[in-house]
């Protein structure tokens, strides 16, 4: 029999941040020494509209427990309309995921400007807390990606 690992589950959170606002916001959080959990890992994308739904599913498949998208505030997009597209696409995708029974709280989108280091840290702390309380992602897991 396999030994059941009694190690506490540490949730993994993948954050997609747009280069111009949210990634800069994360940098500001850093330079202001505003902490957020280490299990939040950031992937830099040019714009939130670069985030393909496949990336989000892929992250869950690989073992992420929560995925968060950050972009410029609507209307402030560096590419002027990118995040408007993101908002619709993700509205549809998140709703669809929930329709499949995946917990609504596992996916989130937040608008964080380059000036909002504080907000970035607050959002990440809050999201990490939410994901912690939800526990491990079971409904979108790929068993092949689990340790065995």
């Amino acid at each position, binding site marked *: 029999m396999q030994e059941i690992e009694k190690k506490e589950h540490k949730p993994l959170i993948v954050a997609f941040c747009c280069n111009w606002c949210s990634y800069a916001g994360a940098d500001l959080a850093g330079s202001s020494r505003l902490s957020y959990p280490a299990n939040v890992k950031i992937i830099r994308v040019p714009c939130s509209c670069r985030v393909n*739904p*496949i990336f989000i*599913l*892929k992250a*869950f*498949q690989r073992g992420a427990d929560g995925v968060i998208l950050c972009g410029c505030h*609507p*209307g402030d997009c560096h590419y002027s*309309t990118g995040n*408007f*597209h*993101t*908002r*619709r*696409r*993700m*509205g*549809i*995708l*998140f*709703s*669809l*995921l*929930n*329709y*499949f*029974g*995946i*917990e*609504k709280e596992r996916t*989130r*989108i937040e608008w964080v400007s380059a000036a909002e280091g504080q907000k970035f840290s607050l959002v990440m702390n809050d999201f990490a807390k939410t994901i912690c309380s939800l526990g491990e992602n079971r*409904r*979108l*897991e*790929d*068993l*092949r990606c689990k340790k065995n």
Partner: protein
Amino acid sequence: MQEKLESLMQELALKKIASGEVDRVLAWKKGESYFDVSPAIFKESFDGFTYNAFCGANLSKFLVEETKKEGKVLVFLKPCDTYSFNQLLSEHRINREKVYVVGIECQGKLDINKVYAKGIDGILDIEETDSELKIKTIYGDKTVKKDEVFSVKCETCKSKKLVVFDEKIVLNEMKDNKEKRFDIVEKLESMTEEERFAFWQAELSKCIRCNACRNVCPACTCTNCVFDNNKSGIAGKANADSFEEKLYHIIRAFHVAGRCTDCGECSRVCPQGIPLHLINRKIIKDMNTNYGEYQAGETVTPLNPIVDFKKDDVEANTVVGGKK
């Protein structure tokens, strides 16, 4: 009734071919039995030409390939097929000049699997009346009311409007049933997350990844689908893990979002009886609720809710898939 429609259609087809206006005709052909109907091209011989309650197949997608060939093709489109036709025009997938569209009457198509489900098997022949099917089987004769065996897509017909045609053959009034369109979606939404998960897990675990839903879908006309493309990182030929079937159906639904006309072909062809149309319909419902009523294929337009936006759209986090 049905015979009259069929003979009018054939007459028209023959006339158009004789006059040289069209080169060939895309319609349905009867095979081994009454319900065994395949899409087919007719040119010289009209043997097997048929139009009956089992002609569910949407012919519009065949035009993608047909209009690449020489000459003009006459096609018969049911109301819901005309939406797909328009949508394909919007996506520049069909050369309109090479098609002569004949819009035809549709009183709802039937699903032979529902006849089987009534315990009727060994079917030798079927006789169709306006409201009934008289079925001859090796185990005796049976009668079935048509409205008990409507295919899923016709049970909640969204529209009986012919949105595009060069000519139409409609003998009787057609009635839609759009009030019920989102009933099952709403039922699913009212379930808890856990129940919904269980529902879809059970349904999707049947998926054998035969790709019938994709290959029949008039919105899926990519020549190199992401699921066949090794570069995409999600290519796969089988559901090696339960994650993959979810990935496949979520991404497929997302790729046709805004372009899906809700023709219901995906559910019709699924060999495992998965109600795939409920996925697309959820997206349509969400888009209607949040971004304004929209029916893909109603007009020829490159804009659809997924490529469009409003500056005051609702926030993505607030669009909900259903109850907690």
